[in-house]
């Protein structure tokens, strides 16, 4: 088992009658860029709040950097940077906030703070409350990026950022984080960005992880197979996520050996039109729609 910076066991959080997080089993390997994906209300932010020790689980536990955020919260927070709400202290300017934040973290770097302020074009002399929401988000990210943390957890960091700034941010993430032994967990709706920078993904729905695997493995194993004819006999049912028929063709969404599946169709005499790969957006849609149980990673390897 590789070194995990985040793991959860049967993590649960209940609000009233709703299970926001419902038996979550999550594993984030050290040094990875982990894309945490899910619809609104799927439980991403609640999970992140649990990891930060801001809220307490109803059951189960989590480990961040091998520490329990319930009992060792301060030790977790010293080494982890969190960006959750994009709200800081409204009466402080960017420079004030840098000064304020610096005192909390021994590995803080003013050099990095200046570099990021320039790269992201943040007005540092305006009060936070007066900044546009895009600038507010950027400032929140700057504080986390300059912290010298070994783990960063960012909740929808690119929400509300324009494409130029998003591009700059991705560049910063790749330059300074990816592949440097530091770990980054980011939740996002912008699947094309996650697809670029992530090496692991976790898809959460209704508080449970539906899928957690290396992005490469996911991309390699999901296929769309289209064949002529309807009511075809198929084997390997457990590999099929979805079947759709219409206008004389049948489309299968598979996770597994697509070539073998296509061959079995051809053996019946059916014409296979194509076996095509799927991008992350398509995979996400299929997985969430299906809402299937988490398949262990060994199967996908």
């Amino acid at each position, binding site marked *: 088992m590789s070194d995990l910076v985040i793991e959860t066991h049967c993590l649960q959080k209940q609000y009233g009658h709703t299970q926001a997080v419902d038996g979550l089993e999550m594993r984030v390997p050290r040094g990875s860029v982990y894309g945490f994906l899910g619809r609104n209300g799927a439980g991403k932010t609640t999970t992140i709040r649990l990891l930060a020790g801001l809220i307490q689980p109803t059951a189960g536990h989590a480990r961040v950097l091998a520490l329990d955020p319930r009992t060792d919260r301060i030790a977790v927070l010293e080494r982890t940077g969190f960006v959750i709400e994009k709200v800081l202290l409204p009466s402080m300017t960017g420079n004030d906030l840098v000064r304020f934040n610096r005192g909390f973290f021994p590995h803080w770097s003013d050099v990095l703070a200046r570099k990021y302020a320039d790269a992201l074009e943040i007005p540092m002399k305006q009060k936070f409350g007066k900044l546009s929401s895009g600038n507010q988000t950027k400032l929140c990210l700057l504080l986390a990026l300059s912290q010298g943390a070994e783990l960063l957890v960012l909740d929808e960091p690119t929400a509300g950022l324009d494409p130029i700034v998003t591009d700059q941010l991705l560049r910063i993430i790749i330059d300074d984080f990816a*592949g440097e032994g530091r770990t980054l967990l980011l939740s996002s709706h912008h699947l094309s960005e996650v697809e*670029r920078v992530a090496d692991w993904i976790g898809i959460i729905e209704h508080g449970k992880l539906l899928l957690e695997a290396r992005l490469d493995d996911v991309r390699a194993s999901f296929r769309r197979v289209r064949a002529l004819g309807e009511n075809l006999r198929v084997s390997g049912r457990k590999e099929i996520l979805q079947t759709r028929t219409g206008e004389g063709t049948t489309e299968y969404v598979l996770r597994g050996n697509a070539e073998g599946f296509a061959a079995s169709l051809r053996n019946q005499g059916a014409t296979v039109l194509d076996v095509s790969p*799927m991008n992350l957006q398509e995979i996400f849609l299929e997985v969430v729609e299906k809402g299937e149980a988490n398949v262990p990673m060994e199967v996908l390897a």
Partner: protein
Amino acid sequence: MIIRVQPGIGTAIYLQIESQLKHAIAAGALKRDDALPPVRKLAAELRINPNTVARAYQNLERDGILRTVPGGGCYVNGQSPGLLKSEKLRRLRPLATQLAVEAKQLRLSREELVQLLENSYDELGEAP
């Protein structure tokens, strides 16, 4: 040379990189002993995870197309000399099948298809 990747299409990014590098080598844009950009630099420029670039480089090295030098750095090897002809043909088969399927759908004749292939091959010029 400039590499571009599109994360949104179906092909995995590392495969896109491999295919573009192979194309560049085949077309002569990258010659034997040319240096490839360092992994992190290329990753940063493309805004993709360095592991993805590293994987592409590793695959090409395994295929004998690139070599790494102990001090770091990747260099072009020339075409893959070490593979058996049967292996080379096996690799190309899926592409050939795809081409054949498309051609049939478009009702291209056998001769037209062969002509198309010959043109493409010739355009690339001499192998380095």
